[in-house]
C-alpha cells in the first residue's frame, strides 16, 4: 500500500479566480442585487489535497472560503482557472464530481428535524438511486461510523447540536465519497463536542483515505488538526502548506515577563524598544509582553533590570496572532 503522502492529489484547484458581477437590469427586476460593482471573491487560487489529508481553509469573513467550496461542488462557476476532483472538471462534469464529493453545509436547517436519523439518511440514499435493501445496511453502518448508532430512531429535533452535526456528517458520508467538503462543521457545537467531531473527522480521513477540505473560524481547532492550512484573505491565498512551515516563517516566541512593579516594566519596555530583534507588544501594569527571536538574547538586553524580574513565561505564538500578522503584512 502506498503512503498517502506520495499519492497524487485528488482535489486540484488551479489558478481559480471568481469575480461576482452585479446583476443585469432584468435580473434586478426579479431579485435585488447584493452588489453594485464587480466583487473579486477569489484571485488566482491554487491548492491540492491528497487522499488522507485534511486541508483547513481559514480566513476572515469575506475571504472567499464559501466561494471556493461552491466552485468545488459545482454550485458556482469560476471566472477563470479550473478545479478538478479525481480529474473531473467541477464546472463541466459537475455530476461526476458530486458523486465523489460529500458536502456538509454550515447550518443544520437542511436536516429534516421531524424525521429520525435513519429516515434522513434513507431519503438521501434513495435520491442517490440506492436500492432499498442495500440502503438499510448502509444507513446503519454510516450511523455507527459517526457514533449515532444508538440514536438511529431518534428524531432530529431531539438531537443535541453535536449529534446533528454528526448526522450531517453521516449524510455527507452516505454515498462513500472520496472527498469531504465541510463548511464550518463545528460552528454550532460546544468545545467538547467539536473536539470530538474533529477527532472523528481526522480518524475517518486516515482510515478511509479521504481528502478533506474544512473551514472553521476556531483556530485552535485548526491548530489541533496538524495538517495543511489554506489561509485566504480577500480572495487571495496568503499561505498554503502545513502549519509547521508557516510557524517557521513567522513564529517568534511570545515572552511574558512579570516585574516587581509597573515602573520597572515601563523602563524595561523602553530599553527593549531599541533592541533589533524584539517587538514589545504590550505593557500592562507590571507585566510586559514581547516577541523575540531569541529569549536569551532578549534577557541580555535587560541588563541591570534582571533583578526586578519576578517571573518569565515563554509560549508559542497563538495561531490567531500568526494569521493576523499575515493579514497586517499584506495591508502594509
Amino acid at each position, binding site marked *: 500500500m502506498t503512503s498517502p503522502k506520495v499519492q497524487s492529489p485528488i482535489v486540484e484547484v488551479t489558478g481559480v479566480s*471568481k469575480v*461576482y*458581477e452585479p*446583476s443585469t437590469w432584468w*435580473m434586478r427586476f*426579479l*431579485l435585488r442585487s447584493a452588489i453594485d460593482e464587480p466583487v473579486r*471573491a477569489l484571485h488566482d487560487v491554487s491548492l491540492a489535497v491528497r487522499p488522507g489529508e485534511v486541508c483547513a481553509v481559514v480566513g476572515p469573513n469575506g475571504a472567499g472560503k464559501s*466561494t471556493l467550496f*461552491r466552485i468545488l*461542488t*459545482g*454550485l*458556482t*462557476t469560476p471566472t477563470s482557472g479550473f478545479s478538478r476532483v479525481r480529474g473531473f472538471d467541477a464546472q463541466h462534469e459537475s*455530476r461526476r464530481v*458530486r*458523486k465523489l*464529493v460529500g*458536502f456538509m*453545509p454550515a*447550518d443544520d*436547517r*437542511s436536516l*429534516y428535524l*421531524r*424525521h429520525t436519523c435513519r*429516515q434522513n439518511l434513507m*431519503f*438521501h440514499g*434513495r*435520491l*442517490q*438511486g440506492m*436500492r432499498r435493501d442495500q440502503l438499510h445496511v448502509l444507513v446503519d453502518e454510516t450511523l455507527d461510523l459517526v457514533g449515532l448508532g444508538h440514536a438511529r430512531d431518534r428524531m432530529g429535533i431531539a438531537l443535541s447540536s453535536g449529534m446533528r452535526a454528526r448526522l450531517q456528517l453521516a*449524510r455527507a458520508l452516505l*454515498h462513500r465519497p472520496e472527498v469531504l467538503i465541510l463548511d464550518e462543521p463545528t460552528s454550532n457545537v460546544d468545545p467538547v463536542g467539536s473536539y470530538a467531531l474533529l477527532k472523528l473527522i481526522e480518524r475517518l480521513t486516515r482510515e478511509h483515505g479521504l481528502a478533506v477540505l474544512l473551514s472553521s473560524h476556531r483556530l485552535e481547532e485548526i491548530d489541533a488538526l496538524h495538517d495543511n492550512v489554506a489561509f485566504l484573505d480577500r480572495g487571495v491565498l496568503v499561505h498554503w502548506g502545513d502549519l509547521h512551515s508557516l510557524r517557521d516563517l513567522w513564529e517568534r516566541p511570545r515572552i511574558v515577563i512579570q516585574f516587581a512593579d509597573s515602573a520597572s516594566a515601563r523602563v524595561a519596555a523602553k530599553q527593549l524598544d531599541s533592541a533589533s530583534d524584539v517587538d514589545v507588544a504590550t505593557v500592562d501594569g507590571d507585566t510586559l509582553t514581547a516577541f523575540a527571536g531569541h529569549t536569551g538574547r532578549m534577557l541580555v538586553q535587560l541588563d541591570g533590570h534582571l533583578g526586578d524580574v519576578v517571573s518569565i513565561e515563554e509560549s508559542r505564538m497563538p495561531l490567531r496572532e500568526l494569521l493576523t500578522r499575515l493579514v497586517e503584512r499584506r495591508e502594509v
Partner: protein
Amino acid sequence: MSSALNGLAPRAQRGARIAGAFVWMGYTEAKAYPLAFFLPLVTALASPVVYYFVAQLVDSGPSVGDSYYTFAIIGLAANAAMTGGLTAFASTLDYAIQQGRFETLLVEPVRWRILPFGLAGWAIVVYSISAVLQFSLGLILGADIRVTGLPIAVIVIVLGILAGHAVGIISGSVKVLSKRSDPVLGLYMTLAFMLSGVVFPVGLLPLPLRVLSYCIPHTYVLSALRHVLMTDPSGITGPEAGPAIALLLLFVALVYPFGLWLWGRALDYGRTLGVLAGY
C-alpha cells in the same frame, strides 16, 4: 436499438426511485405535521358545498349540460387537480429554498433535470386527493355523471396535470433566480381561473377573451371532461375529448422540453451569478 432500450430501463428505474424518494419524504413529512396535511383537504370541501347552494339559484340550461351543479363540480375538481400540476414544483422549490435544503439537493449526485419531477411529486398527489374528495362530495350532494366516461376523464386529467406541470417548470425556473416572486404562475393561474370556464361556460365570455381562453390548456381539459362525464353534453362549448387530448399532447410535447431547457439555463445563470445557494 435493443442496447438503447437496455440502457433506458435502468435509467427509468433510477428516475422512478428518485421520484419515489421525494414522494416518500413528502408522505413522512405529512405524517410529521398531520394537521397541516389534513386542514387544506378539509377546507377544499367547502367549494362543493358553496356551489351546491349557488346551483339552487342558477338556471341549468343547455350551455351547462342541464345541470349547473355537475358542471361546477367537474370544473372545481379538475381545477384543483390542475392547480397541483401547476404549483407543485414552484411551491416545493420555494419551501426548499427557504429551509436551506435546496443547496443540499443540488450537491447530491442527482441530475438537476430530475428535480422538477421529484420536488413536485408529493404535492401533485395531495392536490389529486383534494380533487377526488371534492368530486366525491359533489356526487354525494347530487352531481350526476356518466360513469362510462371515467376512464377517458382520467386520461384527460392526467394530461391536464402534465400540461400544468410543464408550465410550473417555467415558473420554477424564474423562482430559482427570483427566490420569491413568481410572475409566471401568478398570471397564468389568474387567467386560467378566469377564462377556462371553471364555474361558468366559456361561451359567456366576450369574443376576444374567448379566443384567449383557447390558448390555455385548462380550457381543453374542462371542456373534454364535461363532454365525457355529463349526461347531456350537447350544449357544452369547446372541443370534445379526442381533439382536446390531441391538443394537450401537443402542448405537453412542446412546453416540457422548453421548460426543462429554461430550468437548465436558469441554473447555469444562477451558478454564474453565485445565487443558487442563497435565499
